[in-house]
């Protein structure tokens, strides 16, 4: 467990990314990433819950007894998700309607309970908050990337329905990349999401291979001499 700020950040964004590596929270990830705006909405909500949950769990980590830690964590997470659901219903009404049941389903996102149990409950508040933020950012990255891919291939646009999140000034933010596009249905349906995520993971692994191979060689040489 890397405890430096830089290690926590790189873990959350890349090396231990929730969507690319841990493969947690796939249900909302695949269901909601059909457009960039939907993905952004759920990503931000999850990010907020992760930060709030990690912060709370880390603050109470010495008060909660081991036997009740999981129920206590779940109580905290569920309370924050309910609060966020109400807040989105109040101030982002249209987006809340579109995302529908997937906002309360953030509670079932294993990544949140996972970070609380594996990290936030064992470390200082500042590290826990950073971890929550970076993990949330990493998850949002995957969501938005997948959302962009699926929106372009599926309906030929980017940032469609931006006004759901940014208000009436965003009504003409839609970038139509392909005019008169009949749409590729597979990309919008769940199987397309699975395929898309698989492709993204494959690309990430290729990048990892190319970047880390020199480091691996160095380590082997060092152990041979000792």
């Amino acid at each position, binding site marked *: 467990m890397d405890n430096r700020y830089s290690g926590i950040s790189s873990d959350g964004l890349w090396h231990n990314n929730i969507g690319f590596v841990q493969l947690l929270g796939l249900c909302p990830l695949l*269901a909601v990433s059909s457009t960039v705006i939907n993905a952004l909405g759920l990503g931000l909500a999850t990010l907020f819950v992760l930060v709030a949950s990690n912060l709370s769990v880390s603050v109470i980590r010495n*008060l*909660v*007894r081991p*036997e*009740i830690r999981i*129920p*206590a964590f779940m*109580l*905290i997470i*569920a*309370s*924050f998700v*309910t*609060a966020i659901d*109400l*807040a989105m*219903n*109040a*101030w982002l*009404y249209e987006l809340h309607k*579109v995302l*529908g*049941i*997937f906002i309360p389903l953030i509670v079932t996102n294993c990544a949140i309970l996972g970070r609380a149990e594996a990290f936030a409950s064992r470390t200082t508040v500042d590290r826990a908050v950073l971890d929550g933020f970076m993990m949330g950012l990493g998850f949002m990255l995957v969501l938005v990337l997948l959302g962009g891919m699926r929106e372009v291939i599926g309906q030929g646009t980017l940032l469609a329905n931006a006004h759901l999140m940014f208000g009436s000034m965003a009504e003409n933010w839609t970038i139509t990349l392909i005019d008169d596009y009949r749409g590729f249905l597979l990309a919008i349906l769940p199987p397309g999401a699975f395929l898309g995520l698989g492709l993204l993971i494959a690309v990430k692994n290729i990048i990892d291979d190319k970047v880390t191979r020199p480091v691996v060689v160095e380590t082997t040489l060092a152990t041979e001499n000792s």
Partner: protein
Amino acid sequence: MLVTHMFRTAILLGLFAIIGTGLVALTFKYTEQPITESERKALLRSLHALIPPGSHDNDIFNDVLTVSNREYLGTDKAMRIFRARQQGRPVAVVIETVAPDGYSGNIFLLVAINQDGTLLGVRVGKHKETPGLGDVIEIERSDWVLGFTDKNLNNPGAPGWRVKKDGGEFDQFTGATITPRAVVKAVYRTLLFYQAQGDALFVEDK
């Protein structure tokens, strides 16, 4: 010793529950007003979509008759009937109704009926139907609900007011029959309600 330990642990968990619930209650209190306001705005948008503003000259949102009729409107709760008038003469109504037999419970509907008994349109409000399967009844997801426009009690006749699976004229969805079936039944019941009540619906509400 063990008992005190268990006791303290239980109290601690109870404390967490109280704090968590407190947070939710606080958020509920602060969001109640904006939520009601947003729902009111959404209702207004639906009303304008169902009854074109040019066809009436009264304030349809405030020209309301409140009724309670479980047999026809699907619930004991007070349901609103919005009346549209042109120069004092009845033009159309929008009736709040409920389909209580949806897959996951109540489906709230707005049914707009022209003064001659023809459907002007139907819109779906709050519901808990399955995303991707049952929520196809929403106009944002598909055109299915537009299929009610211009229908009335004779078009189709009584046997036609069912989903195709039950021998009627209305499409059901792949993987979701219960939801459209419930909506079709509710719309039909609302048409019957309108026919039974007639002009009584346009009486000025005191």
